[in-house]
């Protein structure tokens, strides 16, 4: 039997707006495991919230099937589904006290008042918010309201908890704290979390798996590491973190999953091919993360013995192109440097009007890892850090 908590099979959702059909969710299929922290990540309007609302039962899919714990959800209204939602604006009942808010769901199940109150207090303790039970929601801070919303949903002990940008309204510091707390809470209760966010950092730090969505399509599903290290599309690479995109022409494919790409200045480099790359693709983009690019001066200053050597651990062959060691080395000129605290961000001009951004950590080094604007340098990266994507 499947251990999936939530399965979406070919879900399509169209909205009518002024006679136009707008496709909010486009053939989404995904299976979410029991106890998983699953993030739906994408820009606003990408269909992530609609997907969540389809699971909650607030919207009905135009076509496709939703299964929760193996049970088809078609025709089952929101109030009979084993899921609960934490809304973006919390949606606490303003006319009820905090306690009554949390008791509401239990009373709908027929739990008697005394038991419901006891469990409400336990839920408040769980979200570390005791002593506010008699207050009205508007008397609480945003962070406290967020906890109440969480307690109100968790007290129902749902199979799946749906969270719609629950931290969106909080300030940065509180958001960071809540990220850790939410993650710890999820580990404690063991409930499957489906977490909608547009914040890639939030998704990466909290989720077990991430689904990146754009224009209603689920582009890629994977662990944060897979998504970050091996983006399959231009959009995913661009949306998650900072990425350099170098246009080029694919000359040929090697047996080991790598390809040879000719860049604008004629240099040929070897790069890892994305699984999602179209088999006939010729015009491609090579993606590489700024922190995976190393910089060194061709030759450092002479030491006491008069010998000159490079300050960083340099590859054997200099001067660019393909190297048997799996390292790509190219000539460049430092076009700009930007100090950003822990790192320095260098803009590097390569031949053929290619510009790359490299991030170097400001570690404790007296010489070497600091470069002047206009300085001639070599840039290098391991071939396994690159991904060849469709243009």
């Amino acid at each position, binding site marked *: 039997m499947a251990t999936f908590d939530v399965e979406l099979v070919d879900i399509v959702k169209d909205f009518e707006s002024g006679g136009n059909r707008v496709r909010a969710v486009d053939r989404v299929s995904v299976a979410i495991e029991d106890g998983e922290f699953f993030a739906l990540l994408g820009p606003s309007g990408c269909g992530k919230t609609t997907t969540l609302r389809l699971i*909650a*039962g*607030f919207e009905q899919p135009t076509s496709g099937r939703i299964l929760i714990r193996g049970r088809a959800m078609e025709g089952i*209204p*929101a*109030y*009979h589904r084993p*899921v*609960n*939602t934490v*809304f973006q*604006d919390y*949606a*606490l*009942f*303003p*006319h009820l006290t905090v306690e009554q808010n949390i008791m*509401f*769901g239990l009373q*709908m*199940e027929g739990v008697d008042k005394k038991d419901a109150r006891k469990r409400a207090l336990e839920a408040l303790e769980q979200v570390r918010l005791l002593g506010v039970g008699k207050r009205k*929601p*508007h008397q609480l801070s945003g962070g406290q309201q967020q906890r109440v919303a969480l307690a*109100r*949903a968790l007290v*129902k002990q749902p199979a799946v908890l749906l969270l719609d940008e629950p931290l969106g309204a909080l300030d940065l510091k509180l958001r960071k704290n809540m990220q850790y707390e939410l993650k710890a809470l999820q580990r404690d209760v063991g409930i499957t979390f489906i977490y909608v966010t547009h914040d890639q950092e939030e998704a990466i730090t909290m989720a077990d798996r991430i689904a990146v969505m754009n224009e209603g399509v689920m582009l890629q599903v994977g662990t944060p590491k897979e998504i970050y290290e091996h983006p399959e599309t231009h959009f995913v690479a661009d949306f998650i973190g900072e990425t350099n995109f170098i246009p080029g022409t694919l000359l040929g494919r090697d047996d080991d999953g790598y390809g040879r790409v000719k860049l604008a200045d004629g240099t040929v480099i070897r790069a890892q091919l994305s699984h999602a790359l179209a088999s006939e693709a010729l015009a491609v983009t090579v993606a590489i993360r700024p922190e995976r690019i190393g910089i060194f001066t061709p030759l450092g200053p002479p030491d006491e013995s008069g010998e000159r050597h490079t300050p960083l651990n340099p590859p054997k062959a200099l001067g660019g192109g393909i190297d048997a060691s799996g390292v790509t080395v190219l000539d460049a000129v430092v076009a700009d440097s930007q100090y950003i605290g822990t790192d320095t961000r260098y803009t590097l001009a390569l031949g053929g009007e290619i510009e790359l951004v490299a991030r170097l950590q400001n570690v404790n080094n007296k010489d070497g890892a600091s470069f002047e604007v206009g300085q001639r340098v070599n840039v290098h990266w391991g071939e396994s850090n690159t991904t060849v994507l469709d243009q």
Partner: protein
Amino acid sequence: MLINEGAMQRNRRIRRLGQAGLRLNPIFAYFFLWAPILVLVLFSFNSSRSVASFTGFTLKWYGNILNNVMGAESAFSTELMLNAFRNSLFVGTVATAISTVLGTMIALAMARGKFPGKGLIDGLLFLPVVIPEITQAISLAIFFKVAFDWFALLSGERVFPGFHTIIAAHVTFNISYVAIVVRARLADMNPRLEEAANDLGANPWRAFWRVTFPLILPGVISGALLAFTLSLDDFVITFFTSGVGTTTLPVFVYGLLKLTVTPEVNAISTIMMVLSTLLIGISLAMQGRGASRV
């Protein structure tokens, strides 16, 4: 830059004049608004029966009304007037009850429902508010006549206008006011709250009574008070739809104008005014209540 002392002085004088005018403006405006009412209130305390002059302060006329209510003997005209007042209260209460339920239901359908022709119904809702009262009065009178004629033709029994026609007529215009007030309240309400209730296991019926209704209740009460006040004050529509023995207070007072205005009429008009002001005041307070909350 040169400073023209003369021009500055002139400007200052004009500004001062303008400010004085601004201060006078509300005094004039409120005088026109309130002077006639003040005269009425004043003469309800006049010891003379005539409105020609104010001869001294008395509570006699209020006393007459009170005596009659308590069952003591009083003038026949006062008894008729109080009878009319009772009719007004009866019509107002029944019409308010019906129109509040129907108006609230329409408001809910408008705010939450999706159905063809919603825009049209939305527009029609404002019709009783904007069309001249006399038009509505005549159309209602004709409608009842036609309806009763058909009824007589079909059943052989003749129905005459009475409380039922007045109440039906009052309901027709009150529905609009209730619906408009309740809908404003619904528009302020976060639609996610109903979804949250559903999400927590409440079916639509329980979600309505546990969440939606408590939140729109101030709007419903406000609409009901407005409807009751309008019902109590209505003359034109009531005049065209009333039958024998169902005279309401405004219609009765109008009838008196052909004879003489008794001081008791002044007194009861003052009471009506205080009552209406009170109800509208409560209605407005209810509309504002809780509006600042989520």
